[in-house]
């Protein structure tokens, strides 16, 4: 345990902050997945591909702006909308006909979509690695409680709660949000009330897509964009959604925090086994609470 002796309070705090900021991206992506799971009951395996499209779209947008830092901010808004558009077309043309099918069929269907979207991304953007640069305002690091944290991560720490707040306002305060929540619990009942459930579903799916796209656009400056990036995120998002309680976006928040924080703090204790932490966290949570931490709508 030589590593334990090396852990100072500063190291602990900076790992914690960085872990929290990573959790924010995981939360944004998983919240989208969880929302779709909750309202539409669709385990959307293609969610990772939508995230990837968001990231690549952000690349194209920032690139179009050249060295103008506004490009990044435009990308943060436009990339999720592009993903939402892709999602809308996909939902109306294909997915909306399949809501009555078994979950396994839906998994197969969204898996097929993932295969197609991946190849489409390759056709549009090619196979090379891409990189997005954060604007100068977000480069370098900043002091938080006396430890230095990369500015971009600090920015994520601000964005994450904002998105959570937005989701709360949407589901609790807006009419569409309330209907969506009701539809999650009993879609027949909502239909009986004369509400067009079909369009509620389309909107709910688009919201999930916006979150996937936003996650992609936000993650873009922190890594190089590659064709395999959907694979990494989708399994993590599914694990997070599961430990949080399927369809519960607050569960996704807790799951994401658990993931991000255990992984980055785990690094301090047992760096060689950092790979194991997410899986082990899921195993422990599910053995203690077989349907996730929070109440599931399933």
């Amino acid at each position, binding site marked *: 345990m030589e590593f334990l002796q090396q852990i100072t309070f*500063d190291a602990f705090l900076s790992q914690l902050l960085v872990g929290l*900021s990573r959790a924010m991206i995981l939360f944004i992506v998983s919240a989208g997945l969880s929302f779709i799971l909750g309202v539409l009951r669709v385990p959307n395996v293609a969610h990772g591909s939508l995230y990837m499209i968001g990231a690549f779209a952000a690349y194209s947008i920032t690139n179009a702006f050249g060295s103008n830092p506004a490009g990044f901010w435009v990308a943060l808004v436009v990339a999720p909308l592009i993903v939402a558009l892709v999602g809308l077309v996909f939902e109306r043309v294909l997915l909306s006909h399949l809501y009555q099918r078994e979950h396994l069929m839906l998994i197969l269907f969204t898996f097929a979509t993932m295969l197609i979207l991946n190849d489409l991304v390759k056709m549009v953007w090619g196979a090379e690695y891409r*990189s997005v*640069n954060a604007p100068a305002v977000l480069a370098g690091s900043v002091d938080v409680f006396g430890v230095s944290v990369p500015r971009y991560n600090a920015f994520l720490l601000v964005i994450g709660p904002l998105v959570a707040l937005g989701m709360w306002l949407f589901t609790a305060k807006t009419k569409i949000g309330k209907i969506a929540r009701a539809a999650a619990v009993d879609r027949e009942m909502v239909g009986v009330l004369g509400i067009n459930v079909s369009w509620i579903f389309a909107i709910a799916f688009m919201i999930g897509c916006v979150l996937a796209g936003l996650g992609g656009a936000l993650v873009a400056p922190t890594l190089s964009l590659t064709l*395999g990036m959907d694979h*990494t995120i989708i399994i993590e998002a599914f694990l997070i959604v599961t430990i949080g309680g399927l369809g519960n976006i607050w569960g996704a928040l807790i799951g994401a925090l658990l993931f991000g924080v255990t992984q*980055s703090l785990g690094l301090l204790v047992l760096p*060689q086994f950092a790979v194991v932490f997410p899986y082990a966290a899921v195993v422990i949570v599910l053995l203690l609470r077989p349907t996730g931490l929070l109440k599931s709508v399933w």
Partner: protein
Amino acid sequence: MRRTLFVLIAALVVSVMLIGCAAQPTAAPAPTVAPQAARAIKVGIVDTYSGPPAAYGNDALNGFKLALAEINKEGVLGAKIEFVTRDDKFAPDTGLSMAKELVLQEKVDILAGTVNSAASLAISAYALENKVPFIVWTAKSDKVTGEKGHRYAFMTSENAVMAGFAGAQALAKKPYTKFWIAGEDYEYGHSIADATWNSLKKIKPEVQLMGQTWWKTGEPDLVPYLTQVSSAKPDMVIFATGGSGMTNVLKVAKSTGFSDKIPMWIHTAIDYGVLKPLGANGPEGVFGTMDYFFYYPDTPANKAFVKAYQDAYNNAYPSFASFHAYTTAKLIAAAYKKAGALDKEKFIDAMEGLQIDTPVGQVEMRACDHQLVLPIFFGVTKKEAQNEFLTATDIIAVAGKDVMPACADIQKLRGK
């Protein structure tokens, strides 16, 4: 009804058996080869054209095609060199399947390719069994020509051990003693880290290793890891990563201010393919090693290669993968010329010790382990005003012979 059925089945079985027996004697005809090739030489390429490392596969293919265009103008043994490609999708089992198809179905004379180390090793084992020469041109596993090497396996890329030796030689001259190793947790990462560290320790015994950090391949966010390393305050960090992980490390090193605080060395950090995606925002002052640049060495041979490549491919610059595949094609042509016949065994004999001129000068296919001996360049990243991306400066060439493990060590490794 049932009787006719059984008659039918019986007839079917008997006829199948008869055909089978008739076909058996001719099932495996020994391939006879004319002394002078009346047919084309066929190279089967298994490489990654989809998935994350597809860029390497495409670059290599371009380099290979460029060389063939030059070679086929005059031909080899009175014939042309042709090729077929198969996509392994970066999956070793698919790669192995594809290699089998190329050998059994396409009857290729030589196998080449692969970005994926595990695929290289799997295909190498198959090549040995079937006595087909196999040339690895992008993967960097030292096992291909080291521990798992054999008569039929060749390697034209620089391997992890060579890169580690080259890095260690240059690092030993720097005034650092407290080191940290950080990298991607896979075979390449570990073998380059081990090679560098063991060699550095030998050259400069006072160095000490403060700690190590490893993350899984494809880890999306490296900030937590770099934060951890940074808070330990080592003199220098040896990074052991490859592929898209490379660009990730450099990006995070820059955005977190890590590269300004702590000196770092990574093999291939100064590669154009790694620095290009970062554009003008790459980190300056990062030490790296590489075996090919389109701008260095500034010799007529390299300039001519770069020009031909740019003319052929929309002004794109050749990457190290393009260079390796180009060199491989030239080696194949030279070896067949030397062998004088389209024969696999003669080809291998001709390859051993073969020397050819390449854009980086003369290289040699070492006879004892079939590893191409080529120089490795040590340099540091810098933003030059005229470029939109970072390049390497203060380049020191480390001669190929100085970074190679001794033949005796290779024999010992293989004997084990």
